[in-house]
């Protein structure tokens, strides 16, 4: 009997062995984080300082200056009165409904996460575009990053660095960085072969090719990647609030546990407003930098 039971039941590993493995790995990682956690944490200190400073700056600046500056930035990059007026209305409502500080916190973390994602993602994307080997290695990693439930990689990050802003930023960046990387890679690979060949034929060095042809021509695609990254970072705000990231996510989390529908809705809408603003601005900016691509007919 016992011999043929593998036909009906999967011949699983012995439960005790499995527990053993889990325990060993967990203990090993726990020891690792106990040993090196502080060192690694201190590596992130400059980032933390910047994050804290920037958040304070946004919160302590009088609200009307913030609205003024944000509207100015929006207007300079998008050149659209409609959007600028929309920004003023959205921010006024946010302030009126008492979500100002949280919105500032969320904006600051999104800003930092986006900068980090760009700073890390574009070089990785360039490296992928240059070498098929790198592409073959990075692509599956990106797949894992995008499909692995965020909670799973939150655990080791929290074990290593505790609860707070830095683990939050790391979690958001892990979640949000794949689009910049992928689309940088794609954008560079899609650059018109003949244009690139022309640069080579005139004796351009690899770095001249990158900066004079590949990056400028890939820019629309890269901008689309950045746009997606911002959107994903915003979407991650609620999850990140579970590990102590303050901002619009926390009230949402609270409203789930306590069933405060209106609180959740208001904060959710504030996130949506931010998302729309970020999205329109980055798209309008990207479009404006591509003016020269318009042909004869609409010139």
């Amino acid at each position, binding site marked *: 009997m016992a011999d043929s039971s593998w036909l009906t039941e999967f011949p699983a590993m012995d439960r005790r062995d499995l527990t053993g493995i889990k325990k060993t790995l967990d203990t090993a990682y726990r020891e690792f984080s106990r040993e090196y956690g502080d060192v690694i944490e201190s590596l992130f200190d400059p980032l933390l300082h910047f994050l804290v400073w920037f958040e304070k700056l946004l919160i302590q600046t009088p609200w009307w200056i913030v609205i003024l500056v944000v509207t100015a930035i929006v207007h300079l990059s998008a050149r659209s009165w409609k959007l600028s007026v929309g920004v003023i209305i959205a921010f006024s409502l946010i302030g009126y409904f008492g979500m100002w500080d949280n919105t500032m916190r969320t904006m600051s973390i999104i800003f930092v996460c986006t900068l980090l994602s760009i700073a890390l993602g574009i070089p990785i994307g360039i490296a992928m575009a240059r070498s098929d080997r790198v592409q073959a290695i990075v692509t599956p990693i990106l797949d894992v990053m995008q499909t692995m439930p965020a909670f799973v990689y939150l655990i080791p990050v929290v074990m290593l660095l505790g609860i707070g802003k830095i683990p939050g930023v790391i979690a958001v960046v892990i979640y949000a960085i794949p689009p910049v990387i992928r689309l940088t890679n794609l954008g560079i690979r899609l650059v*018109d072969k*003949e*244009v690139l*060949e*022309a*640069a*080579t*034929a*005139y*004796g*351009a*060095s690899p770095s*001249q090719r990158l900066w*004079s*042809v590949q990056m*400028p*021509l890939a820019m629309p695609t890269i901008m689309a990647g950045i746009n997606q990254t911002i959107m994903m970072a915003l979407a991650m705000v609620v999850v990140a609030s579970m590990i102590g990231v303050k901002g619009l996510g926390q009230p949402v989390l609270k409203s789930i546990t306590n069933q405060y529908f209106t609180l959740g809705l208001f904060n959710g809408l504030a996130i949506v407003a931010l998302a729309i603003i970020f999205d329109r601005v980055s798209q309008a900016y990207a479009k404006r930098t591509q003016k*020269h*691509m*318009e*042909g*004869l007919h609409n*010139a």
Partner: protein
Amino acid sequence: MPDPLIRIENLYKVFGTAPQTVMDRVREGQSKDDILAETGHTVGLKEIDLTIERGQIFVIMGLSGSGKSTLIRHLNRLIDPTEGKIIVGDVDVMQLDQKELQEFRRHKMSMVFQRFGLMPHRTVLQNVAYGLKVQGIAKKERETKAADWLETVGLGGYGKQYPMQLSGGQQQRVGLARALCTDAEILLMDEAFSALDPLIRSEMQDQLIELQEKLHKTIVFITHDLDEALRLGDRIAILKDGELVQEGAPEDILLHPATDYVEAFVKDVNRARALTVENVMKPPVSRITTDTIEDALKQMKGFKDDYGYYENEDGYQGIVLQETLEKALKEGTHKQIRDDMLEEVPLISPDSALEEIIPETLGADYPLPVVGDKGELQGRLSRTSLAEVLGGE
């Protein structure tokens, strides 16, 4: 005096994952299709030997897929050969390392592309100046020079436009100006005019010929259009499936196609336009070089014609008929050939295209005298030889 600038020796190019492994098959002469089917490798070029002289327009012609682009890209090593030598001037291009190759491309050769290869995010002026920018030339200097070249190709006012705002012909002029702006000695043109409308194309050909008269570059010009090849080429090489099937002067290709493939190519050419009188005229055997009637008749007997081309120290004078001479001899009034004994027939120049002289030739009773700039008789062109050439056989 031959003055070779580019030499290609025993060049092979096989595309695929392990080109060396199929080189034996290629050398044994297995066909391109068989090699592709059996090994997955594409034979791009096979056993190419070519010499390109300084100052020539050297045309490489062949159907699509015959290896033209592959061949021209070996000259500046946009493609590395599987085997063979490329020598430009006294430089063995294969021996250059990465840095040297960059320098070589910056100063020795420039290239014009079929789909223009312009940078859409740079203005026309910046595009033209690109080669100089890569060389590290200061902005002011390179843009001054670029503006001059834009002027030369007839786009003076377009510097601030973006390429997308220009028509195809204008864009290719920008491409040409960019190529000329680096003062490179060699110009590579890969189907540079193929993407343009026929009318614009012929304008561009004129412009290229005009520029070449001033600049005396060495131009390697690729086309799949024989009319274009004949119009531009000082020499023409014909490729088929990566092999060189014929190389020669345009009239050689037209009049003596080496293979059926070349013959099929030249069959539809407008020969009347492509060939000049010089290409088809016969030597002027019936030449009368004496001025007495009696000797003239003797000379005429020697070449068994009843007419002759009378020529003295001042060059060709006219045609004399046996009949006229005999009559004059009988009358005996004078011994010399006189002007009033000459038949007036149209003269044709050796440089005229055949189509220009068809009416004169067909209307004449005698083969027309071909007379050079200095009035000297160079040959004769008969109705029959014209018909033979234009008839194709």
